[in-house]
Protein backbone atom coordinates (compact mmCIF):
# COMPACT_ATOMS: atom_id res chain seq x y z
CA UNK A 1 0.00 0.00 0.00
CA UNK A 2 2.75 2.38 1.03
CA UNK A 3 4.74 1.29 -2.01
CA UNK A 4 1.83 2.08 -4.31
CA UNK A 5 1.49 5.52 -2.69
CA UNK A 6 5.19 6.21 -3.17
CA UNK A 7 5.00 5.06 -6.80
CA UNK A 8 2.03 7.38 -7.47
CA UNK A 9 3.92 10.25 -5.88
CA UNK A 10 6.96 9.52 -8.05
CA UNK A 11 4.86 9.43 -11.19
CA UNK A 12 3.16 12.70 -10.26
CA UNK A 13 6.48 14.47 -9.80
CA UNK A 14 7.79 12.98 -13.05
CA UNK A 15 4.76 14.33 -14.83
CA UNK A 16 5.38 17.77 -13.34
CA UNK A 17 9.04 17.63 -14.24
CA UNK A 18 8.13 16.87 -17.84
CA UNK A 19 5.66 19.75 -17.82
CA UNK A 20 8.40 22.04 -16.54
CA UNK A 21 10.46 21.13 -19.58
CA UNK A 22 7.63 21.91 -21.88
CA UNK A 23 6.09 18.50 -22.27
CA UNK A 24 9.23 16.42 -22.70
CA UNK A 25 7.54 14.16 -25.27
CA UNK A 26 9.66 11.16 -24.31
CA UNK A 27 12.85 13.11 -24.87
CA UNK A 28 16.21 11.65 -23.80
CA UNK A 29 16.40 14.15 -20.88
CA UNK A 30 13.00 13.03 -19.52
CA UNK A 31 14.14 9.39 -19.72
CA UNK A 32 17.31 10.16 -17.73
CA UNK A 33 15.36 12.01 -15.06
CA UNK A 34 12.98 9.13 -14.55
CA UNK A 35 15.88 6.80 -14.01
CA UNK A 36 17.48 8.91 -11.28
CA UNK A 37 14.26 10.22 -9.78
CA UNK A 38 13.16 7.01 -8.05
CA UNK A 39 14.15 7.12 -4.35
CA UNK A 40 16.21 3.94 -4.09
CA UNK A 41 18.07 4.71 -7.35
CA UNK A 42 18.63 8.31 -6.24
CA UNK A 43 19.97 6.95 -2.94
CA UNK A 44 22.34 4.52 -4.70
CA UNK A 45 23.75 7.23 -6.96
CA UNK A 46 24.05 9.76 -4.07
CA UNK A 47 25.83 7.27 -1.81
CA UNK A 48 28.24 6.22 -4.56
CA UNK A 49 28.98 9.88 -5.36
CA UNK A 50 30.80 10.24 -2.02
CA UNK A 51 32.51 6.82 -2.01
CA UNK A 52 34.92 5.12 -4.40
CA UNK A 53 32.84 1.98 -4.11
CA UNK A 54 30.19 0.40 -1.87
CA UNK A 55 29.25 -3.23 -1.43
CA UNK A 56 25.74 -4.57 -1.91
CA UNK A 57 25.37 -5.06 1.87
CA UNK A 58 26.63 -1.54 2.64
CA UNK A 59 24.11 -0.04 0.23
CA UNK A 60 21.33 -2.24 1.60
CA UNK A 61 22.04 -1.10 5.19
CA UNK A 62 22.41 2.53 4.15
CA UNK A 63 19.19 2.69 2.17
CA UNK A 64 17.27 0.37 4.53
CA UNK A 65 15.89 -1.65 1.68
CA UNK A 66 15.48 -5.34 0.80
CA UNK A 67 17.82 -7.51 -1.27
CA UNK A 68 15.31 -7.80 -4.11
CA UNK A 69 14.49 -4.11 -4.24
CA UNK A 70 18.12 -3.01 -4.22
CA UNK A 71 19.05 -5.63 -6.76
CA UNK A 72 16.33 -4.52 -9.24
CA UNK A 73 17.15 -0.81 -8.93
CA UNK A 74 20.90 -1.36 -9.12
CA UNK A 75 20.38 -3.43 -12.28
CA UNK A 76 18.46 -0.57 -13.91
CA UNK A 77 21.27 1.85 -13.11
CA UNK A 78 23.82 -0.66 -14.39
CA UNK A 79 21.90 -1.07 -17.67
CA UNK A 80 21.95 2.71 -18.09
CA UNK A 81 25.73 2.60 -17.41
CA UNK A 82 25.35 4.93 -14.44
CA UNK A 83 27.06 2.43 -12.16
CA UNK A 84 29.33 -0.57 -12.60
CA UNK A 85 29.01 -3.83 -10.73
CA UNK A 86 31.93 -6.11 -9.83
CA UNK A 87 31.36 -9.57 -8.42
CA UNK A 88 34.14 -11.32 -6.53
CA UNK A 89 34.79 -13.68 -3.65
CA UNK A 90 36.14 -12.79 -0.21
CA UNK A 91 37.25 -16.23 0.87
CA UNK A 92 34.16 -18.28 0.10
CA UNK A 93 31.70 -15.40 0.48
CA UNK A 94 30.51 -13.70 -2.73
CA UNK A 95 30.90 -9.93 -2.75
CA UNK A 96 29.16 -7.47 -5.07
CA UNK A 97 30.67 -4.03 -5.32
CA UNK A 98 29.24 -0.96 -7.07
CA UNK A 99 30.97 2.13 -8.43
CA UNK A 100 29.58 5.31 -9.97
CA UNK A 101 30.55 5.92 -13.59
CA UNK A 102 31.29 9.33 -15.13
CA UNK A 103 27.89 9.17 -16.84
CA UNK A 104 26.21 8.48 -13.50
CA UNK A 105 27.97 11.42 -11.86
CA UNK A 106 26.91 13.70 -14.71
CA UNK A 107 23.31 12.46 -14.41
CA UNK A 108 23.30 13.26 -10.68
CA UNK A 109 24.73 16.71 -11.36
CA UNK A 110 22.04 17.34 -13.98
CA UNK A 111 19.38 16.15 -11.56
CA UNK A 112 20.68 18.47 -8.82
CA UNK A 113 20.74 21.37 -11.27
CA UNK A 114 17.20 20.57 -12.29
CA UNK A 115 15.92 20.47 -8.70
CA UNK A 116 17.66 23.76 -7.92
CA UNK A 117 16.22 25.33 -11.06
CA UNK A 118 12.73 24.17 -10.08
CA UNK A 119 13.05 25.70 -6.60
CA UNK A 120 14.44 28.91 -8.07
CA UNK A 121 11.70 29.13 -10.69
CA UNK A 122 8.82 28.47 -8.28
CA UNK A 123 10.16 31.00 -5.76
CA UNK A 124 10.46 33.67 -8.44
CA UNK A 125 7.05 32.84 -9.87
Amino acid at each position, binding site marked *: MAKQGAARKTEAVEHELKSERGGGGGSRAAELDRLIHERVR*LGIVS*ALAVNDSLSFNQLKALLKTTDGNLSVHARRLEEAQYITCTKSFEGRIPKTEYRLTAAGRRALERYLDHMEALIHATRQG
Partner: protein
Amino acid sequence: MVAPRPLHDRALDNLRFIRQTMERAGSFTAVPGWGQVAVGVTALAAAFLATRQPTPELWLATWLGEAIVALAIGGSAMVRKAYAVNDPILSGPGRRFGLSFLPPMVVGGLLTVALYRAGLWHALPGTWLLLYGTGFVTGGAFSVRIVPVMGICFMLVGAVALFGPAAWGNWLLAAGFGGLHIGFGMIIARRYGG
Protein backbone atom coordinates in the same frame (compact mmCIF):
# COMPACT_ATOMS: atom_id res chain seq x y z
CA MET B 1 -9.20 15.73 -0.02
CA VAL B 2 -5.56 16.58 0.65
CA ALA B 3 -4.08 19.34 -1.51
CA PRO B 4 -1.01 18.25 -3.54
CA ARG B 5 2.30 19.45 -2.19
CA PRO B 6 3.82 22.35 -4.13
CA LEU B 7 6.44 21.37 -6.68
CA HIS B 8 9.25 23.28 -4.98
CA ASP B 9 8.54 21.43 -1.71
CA ARG B 10 9.08 18.13 -3.48
CA ALA B 11 12.25 19.42 -5.10
CA LEU B 12 13.49 20.57 -1.67
CA ASP B 13 12.60 17.18 -0.24
CA ASN B 14 14.62 15.45 -2.97
CA LEU B 15 17.63 17.69 -2.36
CA ARG B 16 17.38 17.02 1.39
CA PHE B 17 17.25 13.27 0.70
CA ILE B 18 20.39 13.47 -1.47
CA ARG B 19 22.25 15.49 1.17
CA GLN B 20 21.26 13.14 4.01
CA THR B 21 22.20 10.05 1.99
CA MET B 22 25.58 11.56 1.14
CA GLU B 23 26.16 12.49 4.80
CA ARG B 24 25.31 8.98 5.99
CA ALA B 25 27.42 7.35 3.28
CA GLY B 26 30.33 9.78 3.35
CA SER B 27 33.60 9.78 5.26
CA PHE B 28 34.95 12.45 7.58
CA THR B 29 37.96 13.72 5.65
CA ALA B 30 38.84 16.73 7.82
CA VAL B 31 41.43 14.87 9.94
CA PRO B 32 44.26 17.42 9.63
CA GLY B 33 47.54 15.98 8.32
CA TRP B 34 49.71 19.03 8.82
CA GLY B 35 48.08 19.67 12.20
CA GLN B 36 49.16 16.19 13.24
CA VAL B 37 52.70 16.84 12.06
CA ALA B 38 52.76 19.99 14.27
CA VAL B 39 51.38 18.00 17.21
CA GLY B 40 54.09 15.37 16.62
CA VAL B 41 56.83 18.00 16.74
CA THR B 42 55.52 19.45 20.02
CA ALA B 43 55.24 15.89 21.42
CA LEU B 44 58.92 15.24 20.63
CA ALA B 45 59.82 18.48 22.42
CA ALA B 46 57.62 17.45 25.37
CA ALA B 47 59.30 14.03 25.52
CA PHE B 48 62.71 15.72 25.61
CA LEU B 49 61.58 18.12 28.38
CA ALA B 50 59.85 15.34 30.33
CA THR B 51 63.09 13.31 30.63
CA ARG B 52 64.70 16.28 32.40
CA GLN B 53 62.04 16.61 35.07
CA PRO B 54 63.25 15.68 38.58
CA THR B 55 59.90 14.38 39.92
CA PRO B 56 57.07 12.24 38.52
CA GLU B 57 54.64 15.13 39.21
CA LEU B 58 56.63 17.47 36.97
CA TRP B 59 56.91 14.72 34.33
CA LEU B 60 53.12 14.38 34.42
CA ALA B 61 52.67 18.16 34.29
CA THR B 62 54.89 18.31 31.18
CA TRP B 63 52.78 15.74 29.34
CA LEU B 64 49.50 17.30 30.49
CA GLY B 65 50.77 20.65 29.18
CA GLU B 66 51.58 18.91 25.88
CA ALA B 67 48.04 17.47 25.80
CA ILE B 68 46.58 21.00 26.06
CA VAL B 69 48.93 22.33 23.35
CA ALA B 70 48.10 19.32 21.11
CA LEU B 71 44.37 19.81 21.65
CA ALA B 72 44.64 23.48 20.65
CA ILE B 73 46.76 22.75 17.54
CA GLY B 74 44.80 19.67 16.45
CA GLY B 75 41.40 21.24 17.14
CA SER B 76 42.09 24.46 15.27
CA ALA B 77 43.70 22.57 12.36
CA MET B 78 40.65 20.29 12.12
CA VAL B 79 38.22 23.23 12.10
CA ARG B 80 40.31 24.98 9.42
CA LYS B 81 40.49 21.89 7.23
CA ALA B 82 36.78 21.16 7.72
CA TYR B 83 35.96 24.66 6.41
CA ALA B 84 38.43 24.29 3.54
CA VAL B 85 37.04 20.94 2.33
CA ASN B 86 33.45 21.87 3.21
CA ASP B 87 33.14 18.90 5.60
CA PRO B 88 30.85 19.81 8.54
CA ILE B 89 32.14 18.85 12.00
CA LEU B 90 28.83 19.04 13.87
CA SER B 91 26.75 16.91 11.50
CA GLY B 92 27.04 13.74 9.43
CA PRO B 93 30.30 11.76 9.49
CA GLY B 94 32.10 14.56 11.40
CA ARG B 95 29.65 14.29 14.26
CA ARG B 96 29.86 10.51 14.31
CA PHE B 97 33.66 10.71 14.25
CA GLY B 98 33.62 13.10 17.25
CA LEU B 99 31.10 11.05 19.23
CA SER B 100 33.19 7.89 18.69
CA PHE B 101 36.54 9.57 19.37
CA LEU B 102 35.49 11.37 22.56
CA PRO B 103 34.60 8.51 24.99
CA PRO B 104 38.11 6.94 25.01
CA MET B 105 39.56 10.43 25.65
CA VAL B 106 37.23 10.95 28.64
CA VAL B 107 38.16 7.50 29.95
CA GLY B 108 41.83 8.40 29.49
CA GLY B 109 41.37 11.52 31.61
CA LEU B 110 39.62 9.59 34.39
CA LEU B 111 42.20 6.79 34.39
CA THR B 112 45.01 9.36 34.56
CA VAL B 113 43.54 10.69 37.82
CA ALA B 114 43.01 7.16 39.19
CA LEU B 115 46.50 5.94 38.25
CA TYR B 116 48.08 9.15 39.62
CA ARG B 117 46.33 8.64 42.97
CA ALA B 118 47.42 5.01 43.06
CA GLY B 119 51.01 6.00 42.23
CA LEU B 120 51.04 3.80 39.12
CA TRP B 121 53.11 6.18 36.99
CA HIS B 122 54.55 3.45 34.83
CA ALA B 123 51.03 2.54 33.58
CA LEU B 124 50.29 6.05 32.29
CA PRO B 125 52.14 5.98 28.90
CA GLY B 126 50.55 2.67 27.89
CA THR B 127 47.10 3.79 29.00
CA TRP B 128 47.33 7.09 27.10
CA LEU B 129 48.61 5.50 23.90
CA LEU B 130 46.08 2.64 24.00
CA LEU B 131 43.08 4.91 24.58
CA TYR B 132 44.25 7.50 22.04
CA GLY B 133 44.61 4.69 19.50
CA THR B 134 41.19 3.32 20.45
CA GLY B 135 39.70 6.77 19.73
CA PHE B 136 41.15 6.74 16.22
CA VAL B 137 40.05 3.16 15.57
CA THR B 138 36.45 3.83 16.65
CA GLY B 139 36.22 7.33 15.14
CA GLY B 140 38.12 6.12 12.08
CA ALA B 141 35.18 3.90 11.15
CA PHE B 142 33.62 7.13 9.81
CA SER B 143 36.78 8.45 8.20
CA VAL B 144 39.28 7.50 5.52
CA ARG B 145 40.97 4.09 5.92
CA ILE B 146 44.32 5.40 7.06
CA VAL B 147 42.82 6.87 10.28
CA PRO B 148 41.89 3.54 11.92
CA VAL B 149 45.22 2.11 10.71
CA MET B 150 46.96 4.93 12.60
CA GLY B 151 44.83 4.08 15.63
CA ILE B 152 45.97 0.44 15.52
CA CYS B 153 49.62 1.57 15.40
CA PHE B 154 49.05 3.74 18.51
CA MET B 155 47.46 0.74 20.24
CA LEU B 156 50.45 -1.49 19.38
CA VAL B 157 52.91 1.07 20.80
CA GLY B 158 50.60 1.42 23.82
CA ALA B 159 50.59 -2.33 24.41
CA VAL B 160 54.42 -2.36 24.35
CA ALA B 161 54.45 0.57 26.81
CA LEU B 162 51.98 -1.14 29.12
CA PHE B 163 53.84 -4.44 29.35
CA GLY B 164 57.42 -3.29 28.62
CA PRO B 165 59.94 -1.89 31.10
CA ALA B 166 58.87 1.36 32.82
CA ALA B 167 62.03 3.07 31.54
CA TRP B 168 60.72 2.78 27.95
CA GLY B 169 57.54 4.73 28.77
CA ASN B 170 58.73 8.22 27.90
CA TRP B 171 60.45 7.09 24.69
CA LEU B 172 57.39 5.15 23.58
CA LEU B 173 55.32 8.31 24.16
CA ALA B 174 57.82 10.11 21.91
CA ALA B 175 57.55 7.32 19.31
CA GLY B 176 53.73 7.36 19.44
CA PHE B 177 52.65 10.94 19.95
CA GLY B 178 55.74 12.23 18.13
CA GLY B 179 56.73 9.67 15.47
CA LEU B 180 53.32 8.28 14.52
CA HIS B 181 51.73 11.73 14.39
CA ILE B 182 54.46 13.04 12.10
CA GLY B 183 54.51 9.93 9.86
CA PHE B 184 50.77 9.50 9.44
CA GLY B 185 50.23 13.27 9.40
CA MET B 186 52.46 13.58 6.33
CA ILE B 187 50.65 10.73 4.56
CA ILE B 188 47.22 12.23 5.35
CA ALA B 189 48.36 15.71 4.29
CA ARG B 190 49.64 14.40 0.93
CA ARG B 191 46.73 12.09 0.14
CA TYR B 192 43.80 13.97 1.65
CA GLY B 193 44.45 17.63 1.04
CA GLY B 194 46.37 19.06 4.00
